[in-house]
């Protein structure tokens, strides 16, 4: 479609007008508390005007790029980038970032057709096909080697290890949720509830009855799976979107109950002094409680605070790998195939004699079980849990990891967890901006790459393996 300058200006002006209307009250008039009672305004109309002007220019840049005027768009993007980075005194630092971001978006949009064409050509060439095959085969192995050797790398200080444990926890949760959302196609917005069940199971059983981590781990998984069955049984007969809301409600119920049932969970104060996992009876501490020995005494190694972290790291790595292996295997079993079939077409499944409710229930319970495992690990790692750790936003983050990674793609979950958990942890100060970007990313991914970062998904089963093996599908 050929567009002339006036129509483009009109379009950009309309966009700017709408964004001005959106921002005028919420951004333009910031309300601040006045000591005791009452509010006063903190006018941010200049900020808003600059942002709207940026949106106007940005929209023109995007339109130019869309009609193939690559160079004007790139120049425009570069100008915006320079303005944003220039040492001007804008009302807030956020505006600098906003302008730079707008420039970057235009440049990316300008380069996109060229980049995707070049990449696509490279991928289709003989060498490209070969290379991507090799990459696909060895990428996972390479990641695994990195994961196993990571604690002994020179850069693995306490902070890095903490982050690695956190990322692995989310990878495990992501893989667990992937069974429910990616394979079975059930949108579960209350996944964190099962995580909470696992965490509180371990916290209560260990502090009240002195059971060890390794005894409680399977119990916590079973508890969470039972909760999954109890919840899933009534609601899984329903349409997918009802399920989403009910699971979200259930997540809130669990949190509210934990918050209010003080006798059980000690309410908002949380449960502290949760013992950590033991290594064949040896504890990771400087001095052992009566009847135990420390890891240092057992192995003769000198005591170091890092040992506990490394041990936790390997536990969560093992748990995550078990989740992955389980998923990979079960996809080839009849029940796993039934999940994927159900995701694609429920009516067809019914016609073929698959019981949708039972099949969904198994997926739901299995997903819940892995959340329970991860939850009891979380409790053992933190040594303190409270309902604050299990809010809806946690569920949303786990879901975002699965969605960003590509529903059903295992390696995609790893990439997305590193991106979404690792990067923001390094940029902790961004705080709320991070969540805005989070929400925005979910919308954009659904619009442009609904199958996630790793959009290619190896089918679990092929009808004619030989015919398909050589060529591209």
């Amino acid at each position, binding site marked *: 479609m050929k567009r002339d300058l006036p129509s483009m200006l009109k379009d950009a002006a309309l966009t700017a007008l709408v964004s001005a209307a*959106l921002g005028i009250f*919420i951004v333009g008039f910031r309300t601040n508390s006045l000591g005791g009672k009452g509010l006063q305004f903190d006018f941010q109309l200049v900020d808003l005007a600059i942002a709207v002007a940026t949106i106007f220019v940005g929209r023109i840049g995007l339109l130019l790029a869309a009609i193939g005027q690559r160079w004007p768009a790139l120049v425009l993007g570069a100008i915006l980038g320079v303005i944003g980075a220039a040492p001007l005194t804008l009302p807030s630092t956020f505006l600098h970032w906003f302008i730079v971001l707008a420039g970057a978006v235009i440049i990316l949009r300008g380069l996109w057709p060229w980049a995707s064409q070049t990449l696509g050509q490279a991928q289709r060439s003989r060498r490209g096909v070969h290379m991507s095959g090799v990459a696909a085969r060895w990428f996972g192995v390479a990641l695994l080697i990195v994961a196993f050797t990571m604690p002994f790398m020179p850069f693995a200080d306490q902070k890095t290890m903490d982050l690695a444990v956190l990322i692995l926890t989310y990878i495990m949760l992501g893989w667990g949720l992937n069974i429910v*959302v990616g394979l079975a196609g059930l949108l579960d917005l209350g996944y964190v509830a099962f995580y909470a069940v696992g965490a509180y199971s371990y916290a209560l059983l260990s502090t009240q009855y002195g059971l060890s981590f390794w005894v409680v781990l399977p119990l916590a998984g079973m508890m969470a799976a039972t909760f999954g069955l109890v919840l899933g049984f009534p609601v899984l007969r329903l349409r997918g979107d009802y399920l989403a809301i009910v699971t979200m*409600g259930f997540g809130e119920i669990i949190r509210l109950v934990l918050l209010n049932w003080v006798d059980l969970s000690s309410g908002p104060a949380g449960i502290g002094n949760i013992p950590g996992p033991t290594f064949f009876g040896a504890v990771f501490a400087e001095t052992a409680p009566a009847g135990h020995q420390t890891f240092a005494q057992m192995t003769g190694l000198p005591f170091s605070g890092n040992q506990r972290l490394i041990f936790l790291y390997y536990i969560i790595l093992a748990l995550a790998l078990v989740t992955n292996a389980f998923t990979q295997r079960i996809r080839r079993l009849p029940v796993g195939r039934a999940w994927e079939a159900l995701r694609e077409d429920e009516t067809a499944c019914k016609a073929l004699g698959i019981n949708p409710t039972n099949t969904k229930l198994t997926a739901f319970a299995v997903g819940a079980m892995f959340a329970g495992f991860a939850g009891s690990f979380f409790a053992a790692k933190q040594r303190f849990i409270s309902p604050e750790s299990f809010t809806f936003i946690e569920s*949303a983050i786990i879901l975002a990891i699965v969605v960003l990674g590509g529903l059903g793609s295992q390696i995609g979950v790893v990439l997305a967890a590193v991106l979404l958990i690792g990067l923001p942890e390094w940029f902790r100060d961004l705080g709320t901006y991070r969540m*805005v970007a*989070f929400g925005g990313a979910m*919308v954009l991914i659904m619009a442009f790459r609904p199958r996630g970062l790793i959009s290619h998904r190896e089918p679990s089963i092929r009808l004619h393996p030989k015919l398909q093996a050589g060529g591209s599908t």
Partner: protein
Amino acid sequence: MAYFSQQLINAVTLGAIYGLIAIGYTMVYGIIGMINFAHGEIFMIGSFISLIGFLICAALGISSAPIAILLVLLLAMAFTAIYGWTIERVAYRPLRGSFKLAPLISAIGVSILLQNYVQLAQGARPKPGGDIVVGGFNLFSADGFDVRVTWLQIIIVVVTVVLMGGFSWLISSTSLGRQQRACEQDMKMAALLGVNVDRTISLTFVMGAALAAVAGMLFLMYYGIIDFYIGFLAGIKAFTAAVLGGIGSLPGAMLGGLLIGMIEVFWAGYFSSEYKDVAVFAILVLVLIFRPSGLLGRPEIEKV
């Protein structure tokens, strides 16, 4: 008896607010079959715009309460409606025809985005405000207990009844309502017969958002305090109301709103206020188990 009457009055007020939000859910569901997860946040935004509107009115020296309320009402409806329109245009329209979870996930993204956007722009602290209408009168006294009706409660119920009446008329007797019902029944056929489907869907979002803005304003005036997180709970409760009444049915949404208001208020009044939200969620689950089509809804038949 007096205690019960007082609770009933409170319940009807709360139910009116939930009913207004629930209409937005039910209309969008009726026309494109998706749960507009971000609707609760739209309600929250409407509430914030009302707060700022009231403050602007105060700054401009408009001291007459009816004029201020009317002005803020129109302002909040108009500007919140733009949010509704934009969300549909940016986050849902490109996904029509994508796989079935896509709009829902996009809606969750919008919801997170809006919540944190308001938190960034307006701060995380709860905002007091909206104490425009004060006072009331005693309806009757019994057992040494005064049953009180505040002017505000009367305003809330009257505004709700008027809007719902006007809205029902809009759907049943105008050409816009006809187009909307046509799209609800069969989008493709409606398009073939000359209905502008995109425009109709956009208008549905606009109307839903405008009603949510009214609910936001009433909520602000009733509770006197809002924060960026109110949309989450109110959204779930209003959705429960829509499901209870039968999603896709307008009278159902109103009835459901009333019932949810009653359940919440009576539960808090007679049992425990800590578990009132749990009671509402439990109702949601029970309704979905025993009567998934709701009180006034038609059972859904899936065609292949």
